[in-house]
Structures are given as structure tokens and as C-alpha cells.
């Protein structure tokens, strides 16, 4: 069918004037990709309205059930039943308590039985992996409180994987909540000895618009004596939108560095 005939048919449909045989013709054209659904105005509008309809929120019980199932599955994978994982209702967001139980569990085992070293190392690694998974899962949540909990999970981790630092930087640079970003910065601070983390912190300076985060970064860079940050802070000083208090704080930190 010629394009102008197709256009006429679509226009006719949009005016509500097509007969059943013309609608059948239209269907064939849709199937062949000659007409897109977005061209059919009333249907397109209806579809947009449908997209806007939201379903009710899910319950915490659903989360509990899922994580209980996951833990049960993980238990099947580990051959040792030396420790039993608490149910998910303890784990999220009270992971610290659960980890303490696990640590107490295998610490008790260490003293009570011989040759537990490899078990302890294995369990430590499993706990760290679980913490990491929890953290990454919580960072996806809509609630800022949950994301704050996610960031706090890194505390006490001697070493963190690249995934965790990448997730923390993603949070620092993109989270819509200032408190979460500040928490991410605080969580990254212990790892700033690492050259790559430090370099990424410097890069993060240029991505911050919140004065709170800018000041926190200035304080951190001053503490670290990170001279490479001076150029980034200079840009903030030159920006007319930067509040005077922030400029003063940044100047203080720069003075400490140079």
C-alpha cells in the first residue's frame, strides 16, 4: 500500500471513522510494521494512562519470605551446619546483630573443637560476601533510610571489593539524598589510603552540587593533604553560585594543602 494511503487510513482511524474492513487492513499494516501503535492517538493516550496506574506497595512480609527462602538455599549449599543463619527478619536491616551471632557461633566452635581455622576463614568470607550482597541490594531500595543502612554495612570491613567501592562512588555521585551521599563519603574515607580510591574522590569533587558534600570533601582532602584536589576546588571557588561559607571552608582546606 502506498504511504499516502496508509496515512489516510491512520488519519481516518484517529477520527473514529474506519469500518471493520479498514480496521482489519490497519491490523495487517501494524503487523508488517508499516504503522506504529504510537500513530493511533487515542490508543497511545490510553496506553500512557495505563503506564501511570500504580499498584499498591508490597509488604515487608514478602521481603522476609524471599530472603528466608534464599538463606535456606544457601544453607543447602554449605556442607557445614556448624552455624545456623538467623531468619531474614533478623538480617535486614539488623545484619550487624546476625553477623554477631554468626561470629559468636563460630568463635565458640573455634574454642570447643580442634582444627577450626579453615572453617573460620570460610565462614568469615561467607559473612563478608553476604554483607556485600546485602549492601548492594539495599542500595537499590527507594527508601533513603535503607540506602543509609546499606552504606553503614561497610563499616568494619577491613577490605572491600571493587564492586563495593564502585557502588559507594555511584552513591556519592548520584544519590538524590544528601545524607546518603554524605554517608557514602564517610564510608569511603577509611579506604582513601588506596590511590585509586583517592583519585576517584578527587574526581567526585566536580560532581557535587550540595554545599554539605562540597564542604565534607574539602575537609577530607585537607586531612589527606591531597594537592591534586586543589584544581577541582578552584573551579568551585570560581563558581558564582557557591555560597560564601562553602568558599571560606574550601579556602581553609586549600591553605592547609599548599
Amino acid at each position, binding site marked *: 500500500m502506498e504511504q499516502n494511503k496508509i496515512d489516510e487510513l491512520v488519519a481516518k482511524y484517529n477520527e473514529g471513522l474506519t469500518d471493520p474492513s479498514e480496521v482489519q487492513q490497519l491490523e495487517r499494516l*501494524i503487523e508488517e510494521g508499516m504503522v506504529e501503535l504510537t500513530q493511533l492517538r487515542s*490508543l497511545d493516550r490510553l496506553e500512557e*494512562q*495505563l503506564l501511570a496506574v500504580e499498584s499498591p506497595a*508490597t509488604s515487608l512480609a*514478602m521481603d522476609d519470605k524471599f530472603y528466608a527462602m*534464599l538463606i535456606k*538455599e544457601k544453607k543447602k549449599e554449605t556442607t557445614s551446619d556448624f552455624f545456623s543463619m538467623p531468619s531474614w527478619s533478623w538480617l535486614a536491616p539488623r545484619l550487624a546483630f546476625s553477623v554477631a551471632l554468626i561470629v559468636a557461633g563460630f568463635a565458640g566452635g573455634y574454642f570447643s573443637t580442634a582444627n577450626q581455622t579453615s572453617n573460620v576463614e570460610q565462614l568469615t568470607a561467607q559473612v563478608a560476601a553476604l554483607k556485600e550482597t546485602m549492601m548492594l541490594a539495599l542500595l537499590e531500595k527507594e527508601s533513603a533510610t535503607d540506602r543509609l543502612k546499606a552504606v553503614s554495612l561497610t563499616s568494619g570491613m577491613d577490605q572491600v571489593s571493587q564492586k563495593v567501592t564502585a557502588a559507594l562512588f555511584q552513591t556519592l555521585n548520584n544519590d538524590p539524598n544528601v545524607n546518603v551521599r554524605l554517608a557514602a563519603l564517610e564510608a569511603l574515607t577509611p579506604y582513601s589510603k588506596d590511590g585509586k580510591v583517592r583519585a576517584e574522590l578527587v574526581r567526585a569533587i566536580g560532581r557535587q552540587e550540595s554545599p554539605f558534600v562540597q564542604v565534607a570533601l574539602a575537609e577530607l582532602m585537607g586531612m589527606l593533604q591531597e594537592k591534586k584536589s586543589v584544581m577541582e576546588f578552584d573551579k568551585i571557588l570560581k563558581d558564582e553560585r557557591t555560597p560564601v561559607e562553602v568558599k571560606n571552608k574550601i579556602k581553609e582546606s586549600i591553605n592547609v594543602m599548599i
Partner: protein
Amino acid sequence: MEALSDNALMIAVRDGDTGRLGLLFERYKRPLYGFFYGMNRNQELSEDLVQNTFFRILKYRHLFRGEGDFRTWMFHIARNVSHDHFRKDKLKWKESLESWQNKLGHEENREGEMQLTETNAMLSMAMDRLPQDKKEVLLLSKYQEKKYKEIGEIIGCSEGAVKVKVFRALQELKVIYQQLEKTM
């Protein structure tokens, strides 16, 4: 953050790191729940069906090849979960669909409905009146972000055929909606 893509996570789950499924759960629990809720309008049942879907994802994780889209694979499973449930509870489901007007009188549903705008409430009612297969294709279109090729993979037909199904479903929805507007 390549390692956190859906497919990468599911491959990790398949290969033994089952904890990663938690991340996929957090990403997809709302869209899956929305799909089921759109099909049956029952909050508790929809949550159970989400659980069943993830249970199957875990049980059949070894079947995930990683070549296609994880979301498509997941909705394929979700659709089967939905069909299996309704096959078992055919009578119960029919009753609940026919008594949707009575359900609106129940406190919890009324509360939920009052939160919607009037338009959305009528649209939801209109959706409830659609035949199951038409409702399903519209919900898949919504939660698969109109990726018709992927929807074709889920329901087993061509991309073009999916577009025609969506067209027919929207047409019928429009008619029902206009009828409801006249009666309300």
C-alpha cells in the same frame, strides 16, 4: 558496573553465588508484583506469586543461558506461574473476577481505590473486565516497556503479532472504558 547488570547477576546465581539473587529481587519485585496485581487484583496472592516466580528462578537457575535478556526470561517464568495458579484455582478466580464490584465495597480495597485518581480507578476497572489474554498482553507491554520482540519471546509469537494483540486489547479496553464513563 557491568558486573551488576541483570544478566551478570543471574549468571553469578547460576554459577553458585545464589546471594546475588537478592539484588535481582530488589530490582524486580515491584514490576513483577504490578504484573500479578494487574492480573488478579489481590495483594496477598500477588505477593505469593512473586515468591513463586523467584523460587522457580532459583530452582531452574541452571537453565539460564545468559544469551537473552534476564527480564524476558523472568517474565516468561512469571507468566507460567500466573497460568499455573489460575489453572488450579479456576473456579475461585472466576468468582473473584465476577465479584469485583463487591470487592470494591471492602474497606481495604476501597482505601486502595480512593488513593487512585478517578481516571486511574476507572481504567483499573476497565482492565478487570478485559479477557485474561488481553489483560496479560497489556500488562506485559507495560512491564516490558513496550519491547514487543521480547514479549513475543515470552508468549511465543512474532513481534508483529504482539503489536496486533496489543492493538486489539487497547481497542477493547477503550470501548469498556467509554462504557464505564457513561454509567458512572
